[in-house]
């Protein structure tokens, strides 16, 4: 199991907070509640948080499950460099984004959730975690091509495998058989 990477939970929590803020904002705007201007802000903030948090960071150890379609967003988030990489920045950003939502009942739940997300991010930052993009691994080239290029250097009859293995261990390059013709690639 290993060490807990708090940022993973913070990410889930922040994404949920973004959605809750958005939902609360939509309710207040749709109902034209008093001071719905705050709710309009909450809609914008919610969308922004969702966009920011949608691409999951890479785990330090093991593989990371990508969110569906996040590969299109990862490069955008990566573009901001230290701003999106550093979790202290995220903790402060979320704390700041949360505050205006606190003036309206509809968005207060989103505010509290985002506050909690900010706290978890703070823990993650203190533990020295950083956001790392999940990027596609460079695809391995098919290995068949290599083997075709290189003809066998040691023509048959070959010695039994035990001997061959032993010879390789001892560092004897020549082996049991000396090839009279040099092999040219």
């Amino acid at each position: 199991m290993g060490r807990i990477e708090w940022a993973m939970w913070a990410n889930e929590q922040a994404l949920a907070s973004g959605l809750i803020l958005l939902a609360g904002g939509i309710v207040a705007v749709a109902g034209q509640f008093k001071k719905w201007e705050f709710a309009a802000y909450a809609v914008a903030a919610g969308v922004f948080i969702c966009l920011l948090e949608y691409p999951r960071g890479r785990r330090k150890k093991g593989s990371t499950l990508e969110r569906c379609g996040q590969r299109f967003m990862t490069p955008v988030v990566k573009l901001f460099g230290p701003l999106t990489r550093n979790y202290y920045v995220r903790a402060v950003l979320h704390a700041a984004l949360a505050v205006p939502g606190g003036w309206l009942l509809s968005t207060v739940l989103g505010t509290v959730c985002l506050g909690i997300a900010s706290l978890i991010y703070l823990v993650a930052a203190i533990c020295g975690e950083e956001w790392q993009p999940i990027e596609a691994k460079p695809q391995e080239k098919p290995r068949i091509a290599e083997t075709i290029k290189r003809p066998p250097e040691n023509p048959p009859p070959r010695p039994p495998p035990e001997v061959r293995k032993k010879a390789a261990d001892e560092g004897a390059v020549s082996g049991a058989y000396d090839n009279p013709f040099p092999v040219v690639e």
Partner: protein
Amino acid sequence: MGNWFINEGPSVFVILVWLAINAYLFVNAYLFYNEGIRFHYSRQIYGEALAWARAPAACLNFNCMLILLPVCRNLLSFLRGSSVCCGRNIRRQLDRNLTFHKMVAWMIALHTTIHTAAHLFNVERCVDARAEANGTIQAVLSDLEDKEGETYLNFVRSKVQNPTGGLNVAFTFLAGLTGVVITLALILIITSSTETIRRSYFEVFWFTHHLFIVFFIGLVIHGVGLIVRGQTEKSLGEHNITLCTDFTLWGRNSTCPKPQFAGNAPVTWKWVLGPMILYVLERLLRFWRSNQKVVVTKVVTHPFKTYEIQMKKKGFKMEVGQYIFVQCPAVSHLEWHPFTLTSAPEEDYFSIHIRIVGDWTEGLFKACGCDKTEFQEAWKLPKIAVDGPFGTASEDVFSYEVAVLVGAGIGVTPFASILKSVWYKYCSNVDTLRLKKIYFYWLCRDTHAFEWFADLLQSVETQLQERNNADFLSYNIYLTGWDESQATHFTVHHDQEKDVITGLKQKTLYGRPNWENEFKNIASAHPSSRVGVFLCGPESLAETLSKQSIGNSSADPRGVHFIFNKENF
């Protein structure tokens, strides 16, 4: 289709019933609040949002009652044991408990969303009606109980305007505060139980999930404030709403006295009390179980980072294909890990095979002293707690004349127990055993997984040879993935008597089995038999086998018949 219905039908039925009950409760509560005469005046203030808040509340009661039941694994085990008469298809539904738990959880999330959104409207309207309305019916209704002899309808008493008034409701009323707290608890529980967190950081998931205690306490007291109110029966008799439409005359004449209101009695506790008690009992039972003495009789290290623990416990009864939860205080006080039992019921001990894949398995490995080379004294072995066994027994194997067992990758573990049990049954009494022949297929992507199970197969193989019954079990092992260096290794050792990977007499085959041929061969070898096909593996393989089972069964009722069973281990 027939197979699909047998395997999935009951699940679908359970889900449909559950959805239907949800729909019924929703519609029923909605109509009750939206058309009921008692709530005529309530609707003047709340509008339709009243019904939209109450309908999901009714469903929440129901789903919160259900949510605890699937995680009472001892209760499920008890039900499974006591419902033998109901048949295994019913019993097997009990094995899908966690899927159901998740579905109920999402339903709770959905209803919470609707409930909360509707109450946002309600609070806004109540505060507006109290603080701002003037000369309207809302204002008159909100002012009730300002004078003596009246009972209030609008629970908001202060005249602070929105949005501050709304925030006051959320943080000074019991219903508001508990609502905020339990919704937060629910959100934290959900965000910490996503796949990534649950699989990678189990502790976070496990501890956060205990917010359910806060959730249930909050849930029960959420409605105690009685702030959703309706007109009383007595008042309905005195004050006819169809005659008293002119609210300015209320209380001025005897035909229309001021309407009286009362709150609804809280009902949530009636729904959730039972499951809460059951769950407390469940936890007590687990605690008691963890204090029961389990004797580790033997620890065997197998090649490729696998070890086997043999244990004994008083009163432990198992069936083939079941699993247990294991906890080791020396490694972690909180973590319980499930393992498939690999011993047969006929054996006087029970065993599990553990592969070292993480911290816990490695910790247990060290605690058992497996990393030391010398022999370990029995008293030095760590204390282990066991909960279980759980899961459905796969005893159907014994009811066929011929059984085809197909295991893929790690899905082979339940078959260890089955094969051993078959072996014991075979040894003790050949004549009464209906099963005459077992075909065992094992598909594996890499060589690692072969190692420990091959050990077991080897022992069965030698035992069978000693008894000259080597043809009782025919097994085929398929390696479906390899690299170049392995390939050369295989070719070099091809002529040796024992297999290079498994060390068995039976040679490992490479690539995937040609199921068409395999089924044809089995069909021709056993005409007019019932052949049970058992799979523990991925869905795509299940489809293939299901098709083959149907395709190769003969139309003649006396001919060969393949019956496909997908196990849900």
